[in-house]
């Protein structure tokens, strides 16, 4: 099954490797993405800080476009960036539950010949991979298991908050299960959903809204992942990735402690385990990629085998 696809602004920029690896992995699994026509910015948190109706209308235009393309049937729209995902889910919820707001949005859409009547189901790739394609199908596609590689699964905030659509809000496990399926070892850690500080940078990871605060949030996550022996931090969000990857040098200087750690999209790890070409997964685009070679499987016993 192919899915309509909402890339969001980061996929054309700092999150390019996310799109590349997601497309490569889905194709390998017999699925695929079709970018919706002329999509616009989801509005992120910036628009809702200024005007709620305009923010909701802006995001709703994307839902209207996805719905128009489906010719009246219900449609699953894939949005990989957690910020976009949450903005679109909230917009759909506003349409269902907030009458005054929905009416104002409908009027604005109507002014340009668009309409949205609630038939778009916004989905995150993690949800699609685990619940549509399935762990078994993914495990069956593995060619080079990532044995011995310890992965800190970092989900970030907006994937499971404020409402959870497919995973636990306090201890999500879908990515951990995927990592087990490809032979890697997900580590136990408490910072799975702690804020990365990405929102301090908003849609723009560079602008340094609150430099000191952002660095300290990133530092806490990287330090804890290192302390627990992770080889790589896997993330399902372009903003999280940039925050944890792009500022490692600055974090090291600020806190006088090197935090050099590979940070990658979970789709890149899936792709590597499926034996896909590194260039197809955008590995060459990463700033700190030092993933160790997978170890041959010595003995079964999960994470306690080494103790």
């Amino acid at each position, binding site marked *: 099954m192919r899915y309509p696809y909402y890339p969001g602004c980061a996929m054309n920029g700092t999150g390019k490797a996310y799109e590349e690896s997601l497309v490569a992995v889905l194709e390998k699994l017999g699925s695929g993405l079709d970018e919706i026509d002329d999509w616009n*910015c989801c509005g992120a948190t910036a628009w809702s800080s200024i005007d*709620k109706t305009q923010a909701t209308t802006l995001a709703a235009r994307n839902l209207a476009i996805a719905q128009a393309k489906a010719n009246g049937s219900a449609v699953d729209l894939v949005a990989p960036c957690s910020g976009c995902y949450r903005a679109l889910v909230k917009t759909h919820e506003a349409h269902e539950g907030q009458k005054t707001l929905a009416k104002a949005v409908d009027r604005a859409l109507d*002014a*340009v010949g668009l309409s949205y009547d609630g038939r778009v189901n916004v989905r995150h790739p993690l949800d699609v991979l685990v619940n549509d394609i399935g762990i078994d199908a993914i495990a069956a596609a593995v060619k080079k298991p990532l044995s011995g590689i310890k992965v800190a699964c970092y989900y970030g*905030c907006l994937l499971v908050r404020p409402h959870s659509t497919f995973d636990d809000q306090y201890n999500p496990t879908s990515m951990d299960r995927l990592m087990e399926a490809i032979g890697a070892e997900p580590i136990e850690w408490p910072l799975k959903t702690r804020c990365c500080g990405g929102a301090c940078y908003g*849609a723009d990871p560079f602008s340094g809204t609150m430099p*000191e605060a952002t660095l300290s949030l990133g530092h806490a996550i990287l330090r804890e992942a290192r302390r627990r022996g992770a080889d790589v931090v896997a993330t399902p969000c372009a903003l999280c990735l940039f925050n944890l990857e792009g500022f490692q040098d600055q974090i090291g200087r600020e806190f006088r402690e090197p935090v050099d750690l590979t940070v990658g999209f979970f789709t890149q790890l899936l792709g590597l385990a499926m034996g896909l070409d590194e260039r197809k997964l955008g590995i060459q685009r990463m*700033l700190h990629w030092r993933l160790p070679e997978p170890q041959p499987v010595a003995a079964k016993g999960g994470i306690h085998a080494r103790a």
Partner: protein
Amino acid sequence: MQTNGSLKKGRGVRVPSRSESQLAPGFVDELGAIPNADRLVGCLQCGTCSSACPMIEYMDYTPRRVMAMTRAGYRDEVLGSVSIWACTSCYACTISCPKEIPVTDIMHGLRRIAFREKKYPKHFSTPIQAREMVAMTRKFGRSTESWLAVRLYMRTNPMELLKHTSLGMKLMWRGRMGVKHESVRQREQLAKMLQAAATDARGESS
């Protein structure tokens, strides 16, 4: 209180004492139609929101205090606070609240009033970033990371831009950052739609 665009730890300040006549008791109602915002009336002041907040060290009033002050009508203090702009919208407070108060959505509602009345702390970069990002996406329909960074730094701290030049070059070299403005095709349609959604077109306040 002075704000210089970058957050520092330990900004916490005491809530000034006010007599009832100096408060704005109807302040909660100004928040408009935020679903379940009326639950604020039942806030227990337990502090769970504050303990869940990753940004509390950088706030002048803790989230618990922002809730109490909003309910009591400390209008000027709340709207001029750093706290509402330091919020990263991670929703940790919202899912932890035992009274299910939409704390994050209330923070955003407060931001909208502060922005409308230009009460936000001057030179503090979050509202400026929001403004620049909104201006860019209003015009082009999409945001271009490189230009947004340049615009924000030029308006806050141009020297900071130099610090990030090497990171920018690395990203460009790897094809992760461009200088071309991303844009939707139907810019006129977008402008017309946003105009139709504007507050004055609705004839109401939001």
